[in-house]
């Protein structure tokens, strides 16, 4: 019974987080076009540069991160907002960073692809496949420090064809490091579909090449992801080594905002949207009487208010001074 109690909380947390991510992403997805209409110009508007949103992929991040502690690390990719939010990154600072503001996580130096929150051990970067070795390094630290924090390496199904994927899996397996490799199979690497990039249908099968567990899981079922990840995290914390999880998901938006998406059939997207992981969880929870309509409404309202405040904060924050560009190359000056 105690166990059920906990699970209810977790269910609600997961729902809340997924809805928060979706709301956040769709909000940014609107703001992005401010100042970029009628003529789309990537350099303009409050959020310039590339913007990779994660709508549709919330369950992958939430199902994994709900199992984590602040001292566990997540190393994300170019498409990292969902993992950042699920990991508990300070959302005001993150948003300010995306707006290029001085109050941002990196005082405006990093931007959307370079989010670093050392308080919750979150980082990400714009180089495909770069996350894997870095997460392995966190695993090395855990082992050497005799601590039981774990490390999550996130990569897309496209990233799994980078050499770093292989090197990192081998090293983590060889040294039995507490690293969980999470591959988000959202079917596309920009315009290249998985069948045209990957010689077998599931990356999770590749776990065998390193003698570690590999699981393929439905990414529209957050509970499924949660359970698989819990198992892997438990193993890792217990010193039993790495795991590989591939999450079957789908991205609802373009690769980046502004992507004409001529490469993908509209029907695919429509079909994917019928399996929206948030709607699915909502129905599930309602069906099982874990959550009521009113609670859902209340959660949605709270989240919408929170996101509004967050955006407000970012909008109202000052830009850095131009000459700050020259600071922070090295610590301690020169």
């Amino acid at each position, binding site marked *: 019974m105690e166990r059920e109690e906990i699970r209810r909380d977790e269910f609600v947390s997961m729902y809340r987080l997924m809805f928060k991510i979706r709301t956040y992403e769709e909000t940014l997805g609107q703001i992005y076009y401010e100042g970029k209409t009628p*003529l*789309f*110009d*990537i*350099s303009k508007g409050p959020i*310039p*540069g*590339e913007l990779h949103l994660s709508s549709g992929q919330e369950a992958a991040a939430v199902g994994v991160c709900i199992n984590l502690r602040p001292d566990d690390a997540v190393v994300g990719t170019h498409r990292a907002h969902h993992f950042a939010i699920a990991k508990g990154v300070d959302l005001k600072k993150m948003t300010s*960073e995306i707006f*290029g*503001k001085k109050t*941002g996580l*990196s005082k*405006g*130096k*990093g*931007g*959307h*692809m*370079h989010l670093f929150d050392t308080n919750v051990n979150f980082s990400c*970067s*714009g*180089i*495909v*496949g770069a996350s894997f070795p870095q997460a392995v390094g966190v695993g090395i630290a855990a082992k050497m420090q005799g601590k039981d924090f774990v490390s999550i390496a996130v990569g897309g199904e*496209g*990233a799994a*064809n*980078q*050499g*770093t994927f292989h090197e990192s899996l081998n090293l983590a397996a060889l040294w039995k490091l507490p690293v969980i490799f999470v591959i988000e199979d959202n079917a596309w*690497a*920009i*315009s*290249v579909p998985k069948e*045209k*990039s*990957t010689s077998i249908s599931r990356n999770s099968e590749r776990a065998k090449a390193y003698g570690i567990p590999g699981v393929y899981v439905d990414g529209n079922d957050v509970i499924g992801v949660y359970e698989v990840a819990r198992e892997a995290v438990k193993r890792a914390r217990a010193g039993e080594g790495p795991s590989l999880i591939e999450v079957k998901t789908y991205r609802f938006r373009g690769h980046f905002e*502004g992507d004409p998406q*001529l*490469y993908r059939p509209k029907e695919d997207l429509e079909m994917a949207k019928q399996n929206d992981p948030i709607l699915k969880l909502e129905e599930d929870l309602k069906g099982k009487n874990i959550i009521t309509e009113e609670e859902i409404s209340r959660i949605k309202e709270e989240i919408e208010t929170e996101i509004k405040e967050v955006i407000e904060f970012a909008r109202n924050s000052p*830009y*850095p*001074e*131009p*000459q*700050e*560009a*020259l600071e922070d*190359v090295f610590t301690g000056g020169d």
Partner: protein
Amino acid sequence: MARKLPMHKAISEAIAQEMERDPEVFIMGEDIGTYGGIFSATTGLLQQFGVERVRDTPISESAFIGGALGAASKGMRPIVELMFVDFFGVAMDQIYNHIAKAHYMSGGNLRMPVVILTAIGGGYSDAAQHSQCLYGLFAHVPGLKIVIPSNAYDAKGLMISSIRDDNPVMYFFHKGLMGIGWMPSPPEAANEVPEEPYEIPLGKANILREGQDATVVTVSRSIYEALWAAEELNQEGVSIEVIDLRTLVPLDRDTVINSVKKTGRLLIVDEDYRSYGMSGEIISTVTESGVSLKFPPQRIAYPDIPVPYSRVLESFALPDKAKIKDRIKEMMR
């Protein structure tokens, strides 16, 4: 009269014409097929030439760039796109230890007609891993020709020469020159381009504007900042010579030296990092030659900092017209 084309169309046209001419030419890269290249350098090629000759690859830069070497060793003439130059670090071994050195290490037996096409440059808030130029880094290691077009006409001619060259060529196009609509580009970069194929020899700098008082040496997008500065300075009675190097390897040292002989003043403008790069090499070329200068050589380059994201920070760091004007005025005092 020739049509005006944006640079991206000039590049894809050059590739298409060479692919028509020579069945050994083919192209590989990420999103170069269906998508037509993220910066549209390969738009239309898949439709015209099909999936065998226009190959979308997995995100495996070492494999397909190293693959270009293997294919070249069997008589093919591969073009590969490295989507952003910033990603070079995942494939640099194949580029510089193998493709660049194979001809030399084989005593001239193996030819490496490989073109590596790559996007450079910032100015649109793409931050530290998607905004660099880095041509100075590639110019430092022997065995690669370094081509950097600044306008559509040059882009086509230099691309055709690059493909026909039997040596490896790194071809750097600035995103902010491509004229792709969603990215700002100086209108002058979209100039007149003949329909028929033509070559521009690698190793010939281009004097874009003649002048008497100072020589500005640059490449790529900074060309326009220099030309705009020169125009305004002209109104103020200062006459600037603007040189577009067009290739860093081979480097047309004579054109630069002769210009400085005439003007007695030298300013390098460089969107690549300042230290240990292009700006230093040009200054050395000139000062070694013993040309006498009326003012110490100057450079406006990208400072030695990673590219910051925030617009205010990035603008502060980028070379621009105002900085060029100010510096030239200092030099004229």
